């Protein structure tokens, strides 16, 4: 567990020199002063300028080469990068932990923009399976359609598809917001644990199947509800939030959110029990 403490007050742990301890074991104590500096970026990331723009043609590059070149451009301070000819390559733009304005002029294959934390991305085409999987923060906008497992296991940020998406959208998501302008396939929100999904169109069968928590908003027809997915009352706070999110997503600004359906977990499947980790701890 990390602790927030004022460094001006010397604690016993500080006097013992525990701040520079090797990070091993189950628990850690780290001290920092919340007033030490105003910094908005991760330590060690690149200082980029949104006004510094460049193009990158990846036609003759592998995904690994393209991603490395992206990193190189960010290290030179480029804050706006336009990727030309992505030609449906898989795993493009993954693992970007930087502030960045990234534009793809074309379509991406599988796992595009996975594990990213911070960038604003616009994809002027389609995307394959598992786009923005494990997205931590930032905004990813897809102008056309997306494949299955769209936003699988995302933790945060806004993931927007202006077209329609395949099955299992937001599977296992643990935070963030997924916004779909068109329709969504079967098992949307399957096993979601938290976060929000907004679908302006229709959605397929087994919506929110086995969801633990989180919220799904649907504007169109629902094929069927999954196990433990139940209707809930749409509050004024929900409506205000929906209007703002749709403005952010640049879609459905005039959509009548008051008629949307709100689906949440019935919590009948909840079986939280922290006994298991305790038993494991004892066994170790």
């Amino acid at each position: 567990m990390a602790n927030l403490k004022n460094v001006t007050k010397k604690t016993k742990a500080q006097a013992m020199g525990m701040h520079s301890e090797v990070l091993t074991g189950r628990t850690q104590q780290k001290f920092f002063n919340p007033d030490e500096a105003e910094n908005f970026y991760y330590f060690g990331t690149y200082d980029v300028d949104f006004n510094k723009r460049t193009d990158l043609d990846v036609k003759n590059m592998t995904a690994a080469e393209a991603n490395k070149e992206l990193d190189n451009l960010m290290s030179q301070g480029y804050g706006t990068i336009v990727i030309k000819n992505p030609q449906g390559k898989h795993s493009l733009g993954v693992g970007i932990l930087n502030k960045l304005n990234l534009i793809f002029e074309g379509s991406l294959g599988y796992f595009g923009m996975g594990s990213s934390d911070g960038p604003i991305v616009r994809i002027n085409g389609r995307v394959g399976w598992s786009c923005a999987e494990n997205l931590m923060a930032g905004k990813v906008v897809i102008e056309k359609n997306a494949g299955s497992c769209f936003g699988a296991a995302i933790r945060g940020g806004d993931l927007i598809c202006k077209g329609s998406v395949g099955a299992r959208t937001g599977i296992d998501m643990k935070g963030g917001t997924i916004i779909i302008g068109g329709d969504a396939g079967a098992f949307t929100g399957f096993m979601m644990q938290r976060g929000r999904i907004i679908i302006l169109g229709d959605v397929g069968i087994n919506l929110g199947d086995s969801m633990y928590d989180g919220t799904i908003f649907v504007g169109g027809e629902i094929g069927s509800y999954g196990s433990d997915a139940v209707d809930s009352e749409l509050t004024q706070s929900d409506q205000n939030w929906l209007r703002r999110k749709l403005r952010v997503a640049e879609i459905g600004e005039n959509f009548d959110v008051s008629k949307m359906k709100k689906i949440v977990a019935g919590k009948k499947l909840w079986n939280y029990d922290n006994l298991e980790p305790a038993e494991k701890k004892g066994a170790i």
Partner: protein
Amino acid sequence: MAMKKNKKKENSSQLGKKKETAREKMIGQSIGYRYDVNLLPDYKKITPFLKKYIEAMGWDDLNWLEDVHMGYEEGKPAVFCRNANGWVTIPKSIKLPNNQQDRDMIARELLVKFQMSPKHPLVDLKKAYLKF
């Protein structure tokens, strides 16, 4: 004086503590979430620091911070840092307001400051294990 004491007790009990269920008592641990994960942020309560952060990142709203709330750890107010996979306890010097929306904004601000600090645990891990 007695009334004042009661008031103090009420305030501290609002910082995430709840009545334990029989199951929780038996296993000695808390079950479930430590805050309402579906609580939507009230943007009227946003702090100047968070405004600057959003502007610096080029986002339109709180983005990932919408999912950050103030919970508790060992009875103390705390915020969960997903990068360190641990609870960051709130310093005693920070006076906490009496409503969750304001507390959440403080938690968000502190979490950003903690994650961006060179003293964050991931900085040491990066130094030790960075491959490329």
